[in-house]
């Protein structure tokens, strides 16, 4: 028998420890901020329609501001992130169902127009019927705007994003709802903010529950969500979301507590997006998260093949 050096088997092999994947070139804060603003705008458009139908003008006003300004600033963030911002209109050159960014551009463009028109009508009192129709249109597109961004990030080779594709849309829907509800609580008087409070609490529960499910299911790929700076952001967001939701539930009828809880939910929704974004980048930069799960997949496939063969 030949002598073998007594070195422990490495957990995985790599090329000088270098990453296999290219980490996303999407800039911070542009893209995580866009994820937040898209969620806020989409869910706000929905809240605005409910407020309009149920006769809550102050809540409607705040939600329309959230929808229109979220879409506007979100668009600015997206265009600013482009390597060639002057070519942003190329986003509407084709429509491709295989590209969530293409689908999202076709949702964001009409949404922005409709939400802005609805807000303009609401602020000026002009063309009220057209304004409401625009608001209905934005409300119909809102849920798509708030959730497509989950497909945007999970439809990549980034391990911690891709493997979480089942839960991510629910996390994003919840995060958007809690942000929109939070803004409503912050901006509307408490006697009109009831629906905002309930939307915020439902959203917070979705966001927390979805994250918990994902982290339990992901195994090794949950590490980037727990460790380092993204881990700290996720932990902070979790505490702030849960705490603010509790304040909203218990003290939501106090104007001060309602405003504080609403602000907390807005901030925690944004922090969640930064945490998720950072965790994905970290998982792409470490070859471990590419090699080990793929090796494991190959090993299982070979075991199945051997059992059948």
């Amino acid at each position, binding site marked *: 028998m030949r002598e073998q050096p007594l070195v422990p088997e490495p957990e995985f092999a790599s090329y000088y420890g270098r990453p296999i994947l290219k980490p996303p070139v999407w800039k911070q804060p542009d893209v995580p901020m866009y994820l937040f603003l898209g969620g806020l705008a989409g869910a706000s458009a929905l809240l605005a329609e409910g407020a309009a139908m149920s006769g809550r003008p102050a809540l409607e006003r705040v939600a329309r501001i959230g929808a229109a300004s979220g879409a506007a600033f979100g668009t600015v963030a997206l265009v600013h992130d*482009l*390597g060639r911002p002057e070519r942003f209109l190329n*986003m509407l050159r084709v429509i*491709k169902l295989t590209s969530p960014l293409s689908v999202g551009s076709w949702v964001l463009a009409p949404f922005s127009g409709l939400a802005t028109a609805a807000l303009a009508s609401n602020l000026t009192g002009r063309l009220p019927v057209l304004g409401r129709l625009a608001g209905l249109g934005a409300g119909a597109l809102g849920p798509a705007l708030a959730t497509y961004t989950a497909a945007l990030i999970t439809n990549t080779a980034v391990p911690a994003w891709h493997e979480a594709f089942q839960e991510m849309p629910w996390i994003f829907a919840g995060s958007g709802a809690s942000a929109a509800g939070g803004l409503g609580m912050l901006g509307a008087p408490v006697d009109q903010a009831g629906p905002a409070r309930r939307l915020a609490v439902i959203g917070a529960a979705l966001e927390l529950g979805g994250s918990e499910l994902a982290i339990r299911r992901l195994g090794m790929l949950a590490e980037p969500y727990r460790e380092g700076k993204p881990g700290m952001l996720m932990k902070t967001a979790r505490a702030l979301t849960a705490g603010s939701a509790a304040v909203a539930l218990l003290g939501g009828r106090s104007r001060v507590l309602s405003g504080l809880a609403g602000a907390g939910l807005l901030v925690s929704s944004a922090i969640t997006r930064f945490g998720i974004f950072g965790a994905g980048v970290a998982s792409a930069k470490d070859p471990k998260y590419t090699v080990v799960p793929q090796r494991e997949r190959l090993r299982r496939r070979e075991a199945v093949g051997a059992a059948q063969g």
Partner: protein
Amino acid sequence: MSNSLAGRLDDVAGDAGYHDHPPRMGFFTDTSICIGCKACEVACKEWNQVPEDGISLSGMSYDNSLMLGADTWRHVAFVEKTVPTEPAITGVDQAADGLQWLMASDVCKHCTHAACLDVCPTGSLFRTEFGTVVVQEDICNGCGYCVPACPYGVIDQREDDGRVFKCTLCYDRLSVGEEPACAKACPTDSIQFGELSELRQRAEHRVAELHDKGVDVARLYGQDPDDGVGGDGAFFLLLDDAEVYGLPPDPVVTTRDLPAMWRHVGMAALGLVGAGIAAFIGRPR
């Protein structure tokens, strides 16, 4: 169209909409005869006028280009392996001091199911009549979506330019019947260019020949049309596990899961509508 997102797809150009098209062209890179001369890297840079992207020593053996990227479309990897100081049993370069050198020229895989192309929102990335994948630089707006979508980490953004760049399999040369610059320059024919179906047969023969000679570590990478990307247009003969060369062991095109992703997005969007309704009918004020 069947298998347009994942799985075996025999006529990739036809699937992309070409009715009359030439056969699918590709690379077979036989790393067992790579001598690490980097002529491919140089020829590629020269022909495609790819900008200089830093001349430095990496400390990673003779590798000084580090990885594929916007300005490196061929990358020669140098792996130094410590092996037992027995007489050579592998039949490949093995020095007496127990050091074995693996050299491999990496390149864009021109996947059958190319994630970069699928996710490109502008239509800048397209499938050529040769079945290859090319960026139209006059359309790319630098959104960067293709970069994290590629399961091999090939395509990247050129920082001072904003757009993304990668190997075109010398689309311009192919169009006039010339072979790509890297294959033309390769002195050992480690890089072989040709019709993909023919290259696959040639590779099977080569790997059988190496096994006969006792090089049982030889294996093909990316040639299987049933793999996670439907097979690569540029595939390899390797002498160790893929990850040793910086390649993913079991790459899968992300868009294979996109129908399921859209389903989950749809359900969550409906869930959000439900949450909105519940918020208003929950209880009066």
